[in-house]
Structure formats: C-alpha cells, structure tokens
C-alpha cells in the first residue's frame, strides 16, 4: 500500500514538470508584454526595455526557465510583477474563498446527487428516473453564468433570501460566511449533481443486476439495507471516480462563479493575472491547481481500497 502511494507520488514529478514547462512556454512564446503594461501610459521605448531587463525577460527562454525552476525548488515562487508582494502571499490571501466555495459545492453535490441516483436506479424506468435523467442532461447543458443570473434574480432580488454578491471571511462569523456562500455553491453544484447522479444511477443499476443482490433480497433483508449496504457500496468505485473528476473540473467552474458573485478567490486571481500578463502569479497558480488535481486523483484511487476490498495496491 505504501509503496503504491510512494510510487504514485514519485510519478507526479514528471507530470508537474511537464505542466511547468507547458505553462512557462505558453506565457513566453505568445505576444503580450508585461513590461509595456507595467511601464504605464506615458512610457518611452527605453523605459519599457529597462523594465524588461529588470524583470529578467530579456534573457533566453531556457535561462529564464532555469532561474524560475531553481527558485521553485527552494520554495520561492517569485514576486508578482504588479502587486509588489510575494506570489505565495497573494495566493494565501485568495485561497480561502475558493476552498470554501469548492468544499461547500462538493458537499451539496454529493449529499443531493447520490440519494437521487440511488432512488432513480431503484425505481428504474419510472417517472422519477426519467425526470432525473432529463434534468441531469439539462443540468450540464446550461452555462454556469446563465444559471447564476437566474438564481440571483429569483433568490436574491425577488425573494431577498441571500445577498447578491460578496464573500465574508470565516473569521468574521460563521453565519455571514455561510449565508454569502450558499447561492454561489448551489449555482456551481447543479452541474455536478447532474453528473454524479447519472453515474450513481448507472453504477447502482449495474450493481442491482448482480447475483448478490438477488441473494440479499432472497435472504429477506430490508430493501434499504440492500440498496445502501450492498448496491451502493459496490457501486462506490465509479462514483468516487466521477467525484474525483468533478473536483478537478470544479476549478474551471469556480472561475465564472467567482466572477459573477464577486468572490475574491483564486479563479479571479488567475484570470486577472493572465490579462495583466503577471507571469509569476499565473505560473504559480496553475502549478498549484495541477498539483491539487494530481493529489485528488491519488486520494480517489486510494479510496477504492476502502470501497472495494478486492482492490489491493
């Protein structure tokens, strides 16, 4: 088991290296000059050139990469071109909202979708099943921001239940924190409810077709026990997989949600940094996201051991 984890962790290194190189090249090989933006409106060509060399952008790309990678290994992610602070500090400021939003979204999504999927599989072919399948396709066909505006209009402006925008730090009180986060989390969770419900339904359906279910029913076990203990547990592997994929996809959805609800998180930070050509920040955030993705995949794979004793690493 432990060698498995170790091997997996080691194999993340080449992946992260690939990510680092890809992102680095992407930023530097495309037009877009941070020096010109930094220099301001009335700058001369000499001033821009000066800034370029002070940022180290006038050196060859391999050299620049070497310097950046070297710093990275020492734990230094560099300094933002614009904000006069360490990138790590910038990220630390913005990570809480994104983490909070993502966590609440996953919690809502799993709590809602798994029971729905189980129910649909149990009542296979019935009206509930068909309704769920219909709504789930709708769920991942509507773009997040359209859903966001709709929900804001109904729940915030018309009904007045939630604030229109904004984020309150956990340190300022649990209820305001939650209150501001509910609407964005609901908005974002719809697509994941759709996805996870579908997979739950399909795998529970498959599990329900197996012999051991017939045996369990023949033993006279209550239906609920059959569903939860036997069907769901055996269906857990694909469900865990799709939850893992969902968490990884979440990062993309977070960007739009943060934009509409004015949540100062990592998603917005990245978009702003890309538009401002703030290379160090973009590089650091994308590396961070990629690392999170890899770790989540590892955790999901490890969870298989819990769900399926047949799987041994």
């Amino acid at each position, binding site marked *: 088991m432990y060698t498995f984890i170790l091997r997996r962790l080691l194999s993340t290194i080449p992946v992260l290296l690939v990510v680092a190189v890809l992102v680095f090249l992407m930023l530097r090989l495309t037009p877009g000059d941070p020096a010109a933006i930094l220099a*301001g*409106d009335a700058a001369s*060509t000499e001033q821009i050139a000066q800034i370029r060399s002070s940022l180290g952008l006038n050196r060859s790309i391999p050299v620049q990469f070497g310097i950046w990678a070297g710093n990275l290994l020492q734990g230094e992610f560099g300094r933002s071109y614009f904000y006069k*602070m360490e990138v790590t500090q*910038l990220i630390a400021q913005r990570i809480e909202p994104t983490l909070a939003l993502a966590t609440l979204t996953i919690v809502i999504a799993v709590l809602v979708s798994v029971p729905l999927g189980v129910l649909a599989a149990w009542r296979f072919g019935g009206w509930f099943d068909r309704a769920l399948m219909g709504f789930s396709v709708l769920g991942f066909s509507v773009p997040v921001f359209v859903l966001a505006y709709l929900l804001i209009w109904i729940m915030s402006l018309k009904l007045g239940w939630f604030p*229109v*925008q904004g984020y309150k730090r956990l340190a300022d009180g649990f209820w305001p924190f939650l209150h501001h986060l509910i609407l964005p989390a609901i908005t974002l969770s719809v697509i994941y409810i759709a996805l996870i419900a579908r997979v739950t339904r399909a795998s529970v359906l498959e599990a329900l077709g197996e012999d051991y279910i017939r045996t369990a029913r023949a033993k006279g076990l209550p239906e609920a026990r059959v569903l939860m203990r036997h069907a769901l547990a055996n269906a857990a592997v694909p469900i865990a997989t799709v939850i893992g994929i969902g968490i990884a996809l979440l990062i993309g959805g977070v960007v739009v949600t943060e934009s509409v609800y*004015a949540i100062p998180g990592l998603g917005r930070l990245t978009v702003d940094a890309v538009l401002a050509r703030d290379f160090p920040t973009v590089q650091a955030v994308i590396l961070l996201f990629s690392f999170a993705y890899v770790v989540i995949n590892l955790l999901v794979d490890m969870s298989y051991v819990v769900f399926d004793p047949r799987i041994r690493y």
Partner: protein
Amino acid sequence: MNRKIAAAVLLAAVAGGTAVHASAQEKVLRVVPHSNLSILDPIWTTQFMARNHGYMIYDTLFGTDEKNRVQPQMVDKWTVSPDNRLWTFTLRPGLEFHDGKPVTGEDVVASIARWGKRDAMGQKLMTFVERMDAPAPNTFRIFLREACGIMLEALGKPSSNVPFIMPKRVADTPADKQIEEYIGSGPYIFKRDEFKPGDKAVYVKNPKYEPRKEAPSGTAGGKFVYVDRVEWNLALRDAQAQVNALAKGEVDVLERPAFESYEQLKKADGVVLVNKDPLGFQYMARFNHLHPPFNNPKVRQAALAAMQQEPFLRAQVGIKEYYKACPSMFTCGTPYGSAKGSDIQSKSNMKKAQELLKASGYDGTPVVILKPTDLAAIQKLPDVAAQLLRQAGFKVDLQAMDWNTVVSRRAKKEPPAQGGWNIFLTAWLAPDVWNPLTNAAIGADGEKSWFGWPKDEAIEKLRDQFARETDEAKKKALAEAIQVRAFEIGTHAPLGEYVNPLAARKNITGWVIGSGDIYWNVKKN
C-alpha cells in the same frame, strides 16, 4: 528603523488591530471604484486608480478649485522675484506625515524632482528649472533659468500625474522604479496590512490631519473627513452585480457606473445620481503618424471629416443629458476651449469625407483599429469609428483584444501588419486635455511624443512659447494657434465630452464638485 517601528505602532494603534469588525459607532464608506487597484505609485503611472489612491493618502502643494483656479493647499504663501526667476514658498504649519514626522522643504523638493521626471507637464517645467532647495524646514525655493507661465498650473494640476508630496526617502526612489512605502500627509491613512489586491483596499481617517479653513472645492480647500474608514471593493467588477449591490445597500457608492446601468439606477430605491464632475471626460481617436495610410495628412483630414462626434457620443453614452459635442481639442468651457480651426470635423459631413478621401490618393490600405473588450467606458467607440470610416470609403480591420494588450500594442512603432496599429481610442479626464501642455495628444515631437508620434515643428515652437508666456490673453491666442495647426495636420480627433455621474445611497452626502474622484468631505448619515 525606530521610525518604521513607530510608524507601525502608530498604524496599529489607529487601526485597532486586524480583526475587522466595524463597531456600531464606526462609519465605513463602502466604495466600488471604476477599476482594480494594482499599482500604488501615482508618479510611476498615469492610471486614474493610482491617482485616486494618491488623493486619499497624499497632499498637494496646490489644488485646482471647481472654477479651475489654482489655490494653495499645503503652501501657505509664496513670493516671486521681480524677474520671475525665483519662487519662494512657505508651507502651512502643522503638516505631518503619517509616521509622525513633519513635512519639510526637503521632502517637497525631492517629490517635485521625481514627479518632474515622469509627468509630461512636469518635464516641461523642469526644463526651466535651474535648481531647487529648502533653506528652512518649512520653506522651499525654485530657481528658474527664465520666466515661465506654468509654475502654479503644473504644481496644482488635478490629474495624472499629480505632484503628490512624499517623504524624501520615498521620493528619492529612482523614477523608473515603483515606490514601496505608502506614507503621505493626506487626510486618510492607507491600511497596508488590510490591502488585498483584487479584493479590497482600506483607508482610515488621519486624526492628525489639519484641513485648511476654506470650504472644499475641487482638489483645493479644506479636506475635512467625516467617516472613519473607507473601503474600496475591488472584487465587485460585474456591472449588473454592482447595480444590484447598490440597490440592496450592500455598498454605498458606485464610482463610475456603466452607461447602461443608469436606467436601473434611476429606478432603484434609495439611490441617487450625483454629477459631481460637470467638466467630465473627453473621448479621442489617435492616428498613428508613422505608417500608411495615416502618414499622409490628407488621409488624416478625410478621417477627421468622417468621424463626427455625435454618432460616437450617442452610441457610447446614449443619455442626452450626459454628453455634448465640443469642437475643441481642449475642454469646452475652460479658458482654452475655443472652436477655432475645428471646421474640418465639426462642419463636415460624410459626402465631404468621401471626397477628401478620394482626393487624398488613399490606396485601400486597411486601417487597423484596436478595440478593447473589457473597458465598458470606451468599448463601443471603435465600432462606431469602423462604421464611419467604412462609410467614408476606408477599409477597416477591427481587432479586438483586452485593454492590457491594447496598451502594449499602442507602444509598438512597427507597421500594423507586424503588431502595430493605425487607430486607437481612449478617454481623458477634462484637466488632462484642457491646455496645450497637459494634452498629451498635442505634443508633436515625433518619436518622443505620446503614442501616435506626430511630428510638427510649428506646434512644438508654439507650445514652448506657451510655456514661457505669462500673460493670459497671449496664452489664449497661442492655444488657439496651436489648435488650428493641430486640426490642420490632424494630430488626433477629439470625439466629444461626457459626464459619468456617480451613484450613491441617499444617505451619502458632501460630494465635492470638481474633477477626479474625491472622498474627503463625504458624510455617511
């Protein structure tokens, strides 16, 4: 080192710790500025956000009141020698930086020097200056090589770059590097520990600030502070969300609402629109004089004839009370805002433009117009320009990109096909364009001038004379002559003026009339 610790202690004491919970008594003004605050050095960049930040925490030697007269602010009195070559200024008593140190003449001299390296008008002023010194702590002197008529106008200019006064150690930062310390002597103190880029910027009242006795007017007069905290909400950038937030009372002020928002704002409960800046802004279209087709003055004239101001204003602003056409390159209603020479644009029509274009020998080179996709205030202008130029017979290549890319591209002197440009459009605050020296588009010194790089010796000579001239009537005549010449050679196309009233909750009062975004004197009832 001790001073820094003292400053930190002072700031901490004033702030009362990092746990941010406004007490019931504390008045917090929640502002949504028009853009994100990324650069905190108002001398380094001309960005309006940096300037607004500067007005919060710094003070200026002179200010410009709502009648566009220069008034003393930090300066108490000043004398000029009979030959106009020695200016001696005395500072008001009791001026102190946020770290407790008094403001001295040395700080002033260093600040002016740094500003004079970056600002266009400041650079012009510095060409006259022989040296500056501070003979006594509360005095400073400027020695001129020859008389110049722009001393007070320059030192009191309301908009970018504003000669804010910083401590000497900060002002000594080389002009091509950004400052790293944000200590000023202004009415608010910057809470650096609470600054979260892209999220919020926080300013607290400076209890030790002593405002002048006069009523506030423009950037002059007494800077009284009636709130305890000002929070700039940098995260709320979606225009509809801004309107919703103001309507629900989640924020207090929208600094510059999008024009499409006004309809909803007018209907919102508890919201008022305040036109505190009647002089407003000016739109302009800038030609690239280095490359075809606009390296041919006749083609520029044809373009000027085609680009009537009405269509631009109607499309972009839309609300009749908020815009007006102004046939002057300088702000209408200010001393130099005359209409002389502007007939080529103001008295033209599309037929004339088409004729001029045919006569100019235009060969069909496509005109590359840079269109920013993320600046609501000027987003529609390039489309109007494209439509009008096409109607006149031009071939147009409208290229869309985000504003930062526009900023990088307009600095490029390469031909349009290799990453350059032919036209870009932008907006200025009235004080940025109201005289021939601050107006960056009028400068015609070839590659040393503002993006577009026109070259014309006649204009440069007239501008020089303008700088030296002390008689107001003569200055007006010179400005007229400059404008006539500028329209003749087609430096750029002024596209009319507009106001952008702010939207605030009913209980916010005390707005100061004048240019720029000013948050002193504001009351939250």
